[in-house]
């Protein structure tokens, strides 16, 4: 693995499967009387959150604490950031105090990349969501959830199959979704076939260069899907008319009981949260047996533990063999401002 986790495109298939296997071992920790491992004792993890978040921040905090790391939570509200301090000065402050990893969420796409490559800090940088760009740990936990339900074989060392050929539909506000972007990249790396479904106005420019198929027709995609991932409509980001009314959106792109009935028996329903019940997903679907939305949160802690352990546990990040020729990651650009997972 690289020193930083900035994009799902940074992960080779070996890297991603290593994270998932490690998470599989760490998941059992939740069932133990003492939910703690000593691996990161004495290491400091800073949660640097410039944007609001509940589950991602809590999940990273729980993950770091279960590995015995010291956690410093740093949110924009109530810090000098609200007085106008720059990212650079904040980074230099963190560096001066000494920290081993920075988990950053920022409204601007590329902020984690800037932090990692500017030389401001020596710590490992983990992207916890930047603008409308990427949210790689969300993609990892989604893949982990998919492996647990759809992986043809258990995540063993000789794991074959996995998600190869599985069809994943990602439905909704793709334009503003860093979750969709990271998932499209990672699921492609893991061999799954991704179909993005959205109204024409909610596809980003350049989506044809992504390693995915696209569709405007949800009803045509659902019967073939092995998993359906619903995205929140990020109305706080919308100042124009992306669709006529919320009611029309949910009639055409919302997952309700009628549409759920057209799914295959094994198909699972996912949502990265926060959900808007009645908009992209109805309550009966969100609370149905197919829904793995709560499990996604549980898996999030295990996956983030795996990421922190692999980046910080040793003298350097875990080494998986990398292809000798430098691979160009699929070019995915972002053209909208701000997003939420």
């Amino acid at each position, binding site marked *: 693995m690289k020193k930083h986790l900035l994009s799902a495109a940074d992960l080779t298939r070996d890297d991603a499967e*290593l994270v998932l296997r*490690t998470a599989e071992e760490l998941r059992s920790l939740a069932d133990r*009387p003492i939910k703690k491992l000593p691996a990161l004792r004495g290491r400091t993890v800073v949660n640097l959150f410039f944007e609001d978040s509940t589950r991602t921040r809590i999940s990273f905090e729980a993950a770091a604490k279960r590995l015995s790391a010291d956690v410093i939570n740093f949110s924009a509200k109530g810090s000098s950031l609200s007085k106008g301090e720059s990212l650079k000065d904040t980074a230099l402050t963190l560096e001066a105090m000494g920290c081993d990893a920075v988990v950053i969420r920022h409204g601007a796409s590329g902020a984690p990349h800037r932090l990692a490559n500017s030389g401001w800090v020596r710590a490992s940088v983990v992207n916890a969501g930047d603008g409308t760009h990427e949210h790689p740990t969300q993609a990892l936990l989604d893949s982990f959830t998919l492996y647990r339900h759809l992986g043809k074989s258990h995540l063993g060392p000789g794991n074959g199959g996995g998600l190869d050929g599985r069809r994943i539909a990602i439905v909704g506000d793709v334009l503003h979704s860093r979750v969709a972007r990271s998932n499209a990249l990672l699921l492609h790396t893991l061999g799954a076939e991704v179909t993005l479904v959205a109204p024409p106005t909610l596809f980003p420019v350049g989506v044809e260069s992504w390693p995915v198929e696209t569709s405007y027709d949800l009803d045509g995609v659902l019967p073939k899907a092995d998993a359906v991932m619903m995205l929140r409509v990020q109305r706080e980001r919308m100042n124009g008319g992306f669709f006529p009314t919320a009611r029309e959106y949910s009639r055409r792109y919302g997952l309700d009981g009628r549409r759920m009935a057209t799914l295959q028996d094994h198909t699972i329903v996912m949502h990265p949260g926060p959900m808007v019940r009645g908009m992209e997903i109805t309550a009966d679907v969100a609370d149905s047996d197919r829904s793995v939305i709560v499990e996604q949160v549980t898996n999030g802690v295990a996956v983030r533990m795996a990421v922190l352990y692999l980046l910080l*546990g*040793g*003298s350097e990040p875990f080494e998986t063999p990398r292809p000798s020729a430098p691979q160009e990651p699929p070019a995915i650009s972002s053209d909208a401002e701000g997003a939420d997972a």
Partner: protein
Amino acid sequence: MPAPATTATSAGAPDPGADRTVLDASDISRALSRISHEILERNKGADDVVLLGIPSRGVPLAERIAERIAAVEGATVPCGALDVTMYRDDLRLKPARTLLPTEIPEGGIDDKVVVLVDDVLFSGRTIRAALDALNDLGRPRAVQLAVLVDRGHRELPIRADFVGKNLPTSLVQRVRVQLTGVDDQDAVVIEGAVG
């Protein structure tokens, strides 16, 4: 230096011309049978005994001991795996390592007699890590240690209760345990063996 979980237990370039097989398949089988009987004798039966193998090769050894105890005593002994990677004292000295499975048998380890099973006892640091790991999993009534090979060179005050074979070695040698299931044959080989 601390011993890795698996087989290689000492630095030094292995000399392929000087490998020496010290235990073959039938030797290993006899040693495990004796260890199984000793475990039963020491604990006056198989009640409350839980076998925990340390991955990777401690796990198949624990399973084999469990089979033998079942054959002799007619009782099934819970058998599991205990990964100690995160408890190692040399975690920081090397790149992050991959985790191996931990499986604690149903019924847990509280008030049980836990027999740790590993292939090679060397510095004792793996066992120290295992004792720390056990501490986070429960409170056994007693902890005992069974190893296939004790090669000496302890760096900590730790000793095995049940030993398949004491193997005096020099620090430049490597002791490699091969077990069918993981490897293609049953054997204990000293690499770089000169005398």
